[in-house]
């Protein structure tokens, strides 16, 4: 953890606009201070592959508990079980760039990715949806009133490419639909074809809402 903490500290120190690290807890959690003076604890983990509940469970057994858990490298996947555990502890999860975003909330434990929160809320409020749960940080199991359960992957892309589709499948496995997180931008014809070749759909947000009703 020490090396990871140093890496994070170094990254933050490179930019005076970022929150600063003002100390460490005995558990080696970072004590981060926002520009506003708000302080919170960040646990840095270094899991490669998929982050499971077992990787984060021990972070919450001590006296000091982190409000934010970040993983380095950022490309790693957070499992639904790890996310549910962290949220149940009143904490948040994310990557390096989320330290600054969490600091800005003034309540780091309540920090949530804006784009994912938007999708979760929208799907939960859909008339044909009874529940939404995390499979990974950006892949959801959607249970419907009418029709089978669906697996929906959300990708952070302004414009969705065929490579986005292939990469999502390689990283996250099966999905019924992959959805672009931003409302502007396009889906390339090649991305639609790539999804179709997997028996899936490449959709915009509007397309997802219509598709969930079917």
């Amino acid at each position: 953890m020490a090396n990871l903490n140093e890496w994070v500290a170094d990254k933050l120190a490179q930019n005076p606009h970022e929150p600063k690290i003002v100390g460490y807890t005995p558990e080696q959690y970072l004590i981060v201070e926002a520009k506003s003076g708000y302080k919170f604890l960040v646990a840095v983990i270094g899991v490669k592959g998929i982050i499971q509940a077992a990787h984060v469970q021990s972070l919450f057994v001590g006296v000091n508990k982190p409000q934010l858990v970040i993983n380095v490298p950022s490309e790693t996947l957070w499992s639904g079980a790890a996310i549910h555990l962290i949220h149940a502890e009143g904490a948040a999860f994310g990557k390096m760039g989320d330290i600054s975003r969490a600091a800005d909330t003034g309540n780091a434990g309540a920090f949530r990715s804006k784009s994912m929160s938007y999708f979760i809320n929208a799907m939960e409020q859909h008339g044909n949806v009874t529940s939404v749960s995390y499979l990974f940080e950006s892949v959801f199991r959607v249970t419907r009133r009418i029709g089978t359960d669906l697996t929906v992957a959300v990708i952070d892309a302004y414009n969705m490419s065929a490579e986005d589709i292939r990469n999502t499948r390689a990283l996250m496995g099966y999905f019924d639909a992959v959805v672009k997180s931003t409302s502007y931008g396009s889906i390339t014809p090649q991305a639609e074809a790539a999804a179709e070749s997997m028996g899936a759909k490449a959709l915009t947000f509007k397309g997802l809402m219509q598709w969930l009703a079917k």
Partner: protein
Amino acid sequence: MAGKIKRSNVIADLRELAVSLGPKVSGTEWHLFGSVNRDDPGSSDIDLMIFCQSDTQADMLRQAIDCDSLQLPLHLSLFTFEEAAAINLASVQESTVIPLSNTSDRSSG
């Protein structure tokens, strides 16, 4: 953040990254867009599109590029040239082509 993260430095870093990848980037075109390209303050990541010769090259670059290796996280999108043309991507995103050879950068929008 972009007040301190200089666009010119990001372009230099991206060129260095491209050079480090060697023949894997042959025939590709790198486009910087978004807040860093506009020199907006408060950028949280670097938006980069790479146009590739083939699906295979795009998949290979996804594996080869470490998105945590620069000053800010890299938000990487990979397209074939055919895909990029289909949605007029460079123009829509008002991107700047990063010269991978020793020439100055140019806007493509």
